[in-house]
């Protein structure tokens, strides 16, 4: 593979999902305010699912715990942007240093990312030694602990009450830029030496260890980056919603984002973006339909709960019929561009077979 070709592949892998993200951002701008919110929510979902992809897609280890980083990011960013003048009346139990300070929008997002990454690194040090089912259960335990502490410790937040009066600064522009940052980080990690080492360990752990790859270190790095992106996504989320409760960042969101990742195809950025957008729009449509909506021909009202039934069935069907997801876990590529850069043409039967081999589906560890 030539250097130009490798660069072109990387550029395409980033630019195709990036164009889709920008397209969603631009189209959203032409929508009515209510529908615009659905577009912003979709872009925030893209950011969360990319974060999940960075770890799950590259390592092949399942995580039920990423929503705890989203939760931490959301509550931190939300709490620190509520003006210090009103905080003591909203949350009288708060630690003084949390109650007396407030920061702007951008610093709050940076703070959310930093805390998410730090938390992920801390829990990752012990947890990244686990694989398979044990990793699934252990990360679920992290989610349960985070939820439990956020819900009942009133010194660090609103507890069981709603965190409200958060400035609503996440519009289409910030959501689009946020998703682009996450996508760039995902591709940069994917193509970096640590990313390649981690994927090697996903394909064949003993072989990877035999060539000197420290699996624990590579997983920990991916988990930390992934946690930082998830925290950042949480910051975007709270600034879109303006208010948040601990129940919004718990099992339901875990299920929804996992469904997005698996339906799109967990092992590629392209799959994460496509899955998140499709499922997010479907979910918004179904939730609107639960409140009664007009579909082209007739008035449609679905009973409450229909959205999770349909998503659950869709996820199960995808696992049964096409476990690589819609994209089959492949990155985006433009065939004509590859052909143009592939000069001189490789001898028949050689060269291409190797890098066109489909990646193994991510969850088949």
């Amino acid at each position: 593979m030539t250097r130009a070709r490798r660069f072109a592949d990387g550029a395409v892998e980033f630019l195709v999902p990036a164009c889709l993200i920008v397209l969603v951002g631009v189209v959203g701008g032409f929508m009515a305010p209510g529908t615009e919110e659905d577009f912003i929510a979709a872009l925030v979902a893209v950011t969360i699912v990319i974060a999940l992809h960075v770890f799950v897609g590259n390592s092949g280890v399942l995580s039920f715990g990423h929503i705890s980083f989203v939760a931490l990011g959301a509550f931190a960013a939300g709490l620190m942007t509520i003006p210090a003048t009103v905080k003591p009346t909203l949350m009288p139990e708060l630690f003084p240093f949390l109650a007396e300070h407030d920061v702007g929008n951008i610093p709050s997002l940076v703070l959310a990312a930093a805390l998410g990454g730090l938390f992920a690194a801390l829990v990752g040090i012990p947890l990244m030694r686990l694989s398979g089912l044990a990793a699934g259960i252990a990360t679920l335990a992290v989610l349960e602990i985070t939820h439990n502490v956020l819900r009942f410790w009133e010194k660090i937040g609103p507890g069981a009450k709603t965190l409200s009066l958060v400035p609503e600064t996440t519009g289409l522009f910030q959501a689009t830029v946020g998703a682009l940052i996450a996508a760039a980080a995902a591709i940069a990690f994917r193509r970096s030496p640590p990313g390649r080492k981690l994927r090697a360990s996903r394909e064949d752990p003993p072989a990877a260890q035999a060539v000197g790859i420290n699996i624990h270190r590579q997983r920990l790095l991916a988990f930390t980056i992934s946690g930082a992106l998830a925290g950042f996504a949480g910051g975007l989320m709270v600034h879109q919603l303006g208010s948040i409760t601990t129940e919004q960042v718990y099992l339901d969101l875990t299920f929804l984002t996992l469904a997005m990742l698996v339906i799109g195809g967990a092992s590629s950025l392209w799959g994460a973006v496509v899955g998140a957008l499709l499922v997010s729009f479907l979910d918004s449509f179904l939730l609107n339909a639960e409140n009664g909506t007009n579909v082209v021909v007739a008035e449609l009202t679905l009973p409450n709960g229909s959205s999770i039934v349909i998503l659950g069935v869709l996820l199960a069907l995808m696992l049964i019929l096409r476990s690589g997801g819609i994209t089959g876990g492949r990155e985006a590529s433009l065939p004509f561009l590859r052909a143009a850069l592939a000069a001189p043409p490789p001898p028949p039967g050689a060269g291409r077979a190797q890098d066109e081999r489909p990646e193994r589906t991510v969850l088949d560890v």
Partner: protein
Amino acid sequence: MSVLQSIVDGVALGAVYALVAVGLALVFGVMRLINFAHGELITAGGYTLALTAAFPKIASVTITVVVCIALALLMERVAFRPLRAASPTTTLVATFAVAFALQGVWLIAFGPEGRTADVLASLNQRVFEGDLDVRWITVTMLAVGGLLLGGTAFLLGRTTIGLQMRAAAADFRAARLLGVRADTVISFAFVLAGLLAAAVAILLTVQRPLVTPTFGLEVTILGLVGVVVGGIDRLGTATLGGFAIGFLTSVLGDALPADERVFLPSFVFLLVILVLLLRPAGLFARPSKTAVERV
């Protein structure tokens, strides 16, 4: 509250979680499937009890058992059989999907408020007067729990189908080569899981009569934790783990001061992480037979 009282309550709750654990471990044994959707069987049982409240008690209980077993078989046939060749993590996500889909179904059918199932409410009375509060339901829980656990042990140890199930759990491919019918064995495991789920639903609704869409999920998550902590590879250790987690939550709940009791789940899950790290095969498993890979 006396220490003895704590222990009595703990044993009662432990017995219920032991039943949840056996249901999970049986299915895991033959299929390598961690069934998140097991809780939905319990929820289905709870709703059936609520809907059949007007029937004679014996009819209500029978219908509940039938519904749970039927749903267990349906679940296996529709969602899990096509995934038999897939990796454990893929099927784990699939059971997650089934669990959420069924929760949606409960929400559509019965609404978010919950229904009251008080069929066996008469069992919620004291056995004798005095300081120690022992209810009939506690006695029933222990009796039913012991009976079902004993029955399962007998079935696995002394019958042909039990032998086949143990063979399938040890090495599924070799068992098939030797003529064990995979579909029969797996279906049978799900029948037992359905039966156990029905028993849990019946016992649990006496203490918590309000059945909501997440009724079974909460029980299952804790039961699952118990199974993994105890050691999922063997039925005995899994059952012990389930009992331990039920006992521990109940006793810790009594022992902790009121303002720290809300953090009980954190303590329990922290313990889970510790066990997974230090003894990945399970607290009661023999350390040499490590079932969980580590890097």
